[in-house]
């Protein structure tokens, strides 16, 4: 049965997700734009460079510390556009709602979508609603698509990391995943961790304002920093070395990860970006990031190397090394 069924792990953003895309979607939809495999497509229409993306949101619980499904749905798509260096303009909203879902909850979700859209400076300009029978969906699923303008002179892609470049993150990792995990049914401890969910287009604009010469932007959502850096290493044909001690992780996140047996490097973020920046400008860009509300804890966490192409290696706090692989399957809570 296993070989002919979709498993949850196919949707985890890790290796099985990649296999699914490569074996099912790419060969059939095959075209040059899609084959780039970036978080959004870059297309040219009448001489204007547009970024275009779509994303679906099925989070459970719908409401969690630091955000809800509505905020996620707007920020997720805004961030996918921003990771192309694009300025997001318009987004769509499609709702699949389970019969019986409360109108009050829907109102809250819609209100937080509006709030997030206002902050990001995008307009929600079209939408669709479908209601399905009870049991055919889990409360509410939201799909958003978005388009944005790619400014002149900006060229970022997961394939542009070069040896010598620095790897930069805009703050603490793992907040979103652990906030959601802590609220899931079955976890009986209280935590103070809040999701980092945020629109990152403003921060990207600040960074590009400091230097247009940024090679890669990626938001480490599902699969976490580890999976995203593996994608960049593979796409660019380079190696990446991370310094464990430089990676910002909150004590609370580390603690919950320890209890559940998770590795923060694989935990989802919704308000983080990874940037690969040439060494000569990296410090300057990081200084600019620190002046932005979503970048106060920015840090250089590693660098791109010519060795071990396609591999991410972590130098540990005690001076050892380990390979940081892509997430395989879901991260499952361990037993002891």
């Amino acid at each position: 049965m296993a070989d002919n069924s979709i498993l949850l792990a196919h949707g985890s953003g890790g290796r099985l997700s990649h296999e699914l895309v490569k074996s099912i979607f790419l060969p059939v939809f095959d075209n040059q734009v899609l084959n780039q495999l970036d978080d959004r497509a870059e297309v040219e229409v009448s001489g204007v460079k547009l970024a275009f993306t779509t994303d679906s949101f099925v989070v459970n619980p719908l409401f969690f510390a630091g955000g809800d499904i509505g905020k996620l749905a707007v920020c997720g798509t805004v961030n996918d556009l921003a990771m192309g260096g694009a300025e997001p303009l318009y987004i769509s909203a499609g709702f699949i709602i389970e019969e019986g879902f409360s109108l009050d909850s829907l109102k809250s979700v819609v209100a937080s979508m509006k709030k997030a859209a206002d902050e990001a400076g995008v307009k929600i300009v079209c939408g669709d609603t479908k209601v399905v029978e009870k049991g055919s969906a889990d409360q509410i699923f939201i799909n958003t698509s978005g388009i944005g303008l790619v400014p002149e002179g900006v060229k970022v892609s997961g394939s542009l990391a070069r040896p010598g470049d620095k790897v930069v993150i805009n703050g603490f990792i793992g907040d979103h995943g652990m906030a959601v995990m802590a609220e899931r049914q079955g976890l009986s401890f209280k935590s103070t961790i809040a999701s980092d969910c945020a629109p990152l287009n403003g921060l990207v604009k600040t960074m590009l304002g400091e230097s247009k010469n940024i090679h890669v932007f990626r938001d480490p959502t599902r699969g976490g920093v580890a999976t995203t850096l593996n994608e960049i290493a593979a796409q660019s044909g380079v190696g990446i070395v991370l310094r464990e001690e430089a990676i910002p992780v909150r004590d609370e996140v580390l603690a919950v990860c320890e209890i559940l047996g998770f590795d923060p490097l694989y935990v989802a973020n919704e308000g983080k970006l990874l940037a690969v920046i040439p060494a000569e400008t990296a410090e300057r860009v990081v200084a600019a990031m620190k002046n932005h509300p979503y970048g106060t804890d920015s840090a250089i966490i590693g660098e791109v190397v010519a060795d071990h192409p396609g591999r991410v290696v972590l130098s540990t706090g005690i001076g050892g090394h380990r390979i940081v692989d892509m997430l395989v399957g879901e991260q499952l809570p361990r037993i002891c």
Partner: protein
Amino acid sequence: MKFLKEYRDGALARDILRKIEGLSKKPVKLMEVCGTHTVAIFRHGIREVLPGNIALISGPGCPVCVTPNRHIDEAIELCRRRDVILTTFGDMMKVPGSNSSLAAEKAGGASIRIVYSTMDALDIARMNPEKEVIFFGIGFETTSPTIAAAVLQAEREGLNNFSVVGAQKLIPQAIRALLSDDEIGINGFILPGHVSAIIGVSPYEFIAGEFGIPAVVIGFEPVDILQGIYMLIKQIEEGAAKVEIQYNRGVPPAGNPHAMALLFKVFEVSDAIWRGIGTIPGTGLKLRKEYQKFDAVKKFGIKINDDREHPGCKCGDVLRGLKTPLECGLFGKACLPEHPVGACMVSVEGTCSAYYKYGKRSE
């Protein structure tokens, strides 16, 4: 969690390493019995920073890995019943049984829920009185007292729709079985701190007393592990053989007598099948007669006849520290984390999974 970063302090770790380097002369093989140690050792790159004469060998201590097909097949058989909700710790989901896995059964429609403790399974039983809620009981001495507590609670509440697939294991006698195998030349044991937090140290005294081999109960942070290795090397170089505790902050010498009393009120010691190793006397737990109504396998009359393991799988030798995963023909080829053949590849604490994940893919 205070103290986490302190026990990962690079400068402190390097100090201890220098002490180990200064002291260690003989070539030694140390076995980490527990999967949590295996993962921590890889995660922090400890093998690589130790002097070349100290070899760390992974032992049998991942409860998921040593669970034989028989129990997984039992759980699968049970979860296929429409009136059953199976509850399990997350890392059992992908473990292959003879023909399927819980993850595949869940995709096929079985009602399986991941829980974080046995008490969560009790909650589910209370909320679903029309269903039988079965807990897949995996674990060592660390989790078994909580299973015992859940059984006692169910008894008190008269919860008749709760039962357990019992596949728990006990550690100390498994070490005796390892030591009785002449092939295994181990000079010291890295014992798991959390198990001793329950059982104390006395069940391990035979390692030093009967076999003359040093053993230290060690915590799971890099500074703990290095300090514990230092204590082992010191014993070895001085020709001593004692059972010591490095993990003082978690382990009282007598363990947790309350938890042990609970455990043995509900369970009694039995023989157990260890995947890839076979039956080891005195390493299993079975429900005492008065609690057998909580035995899911008996309750539903489940019979597993065919529970063969993959013939090429070397998990058995890996679990006994006789082979490294790199010496298995399936490792990294037919047996991968996304398509595991043997249990050591499935659990995040399995030796093969740790080798693969953290990059030890060839000599």
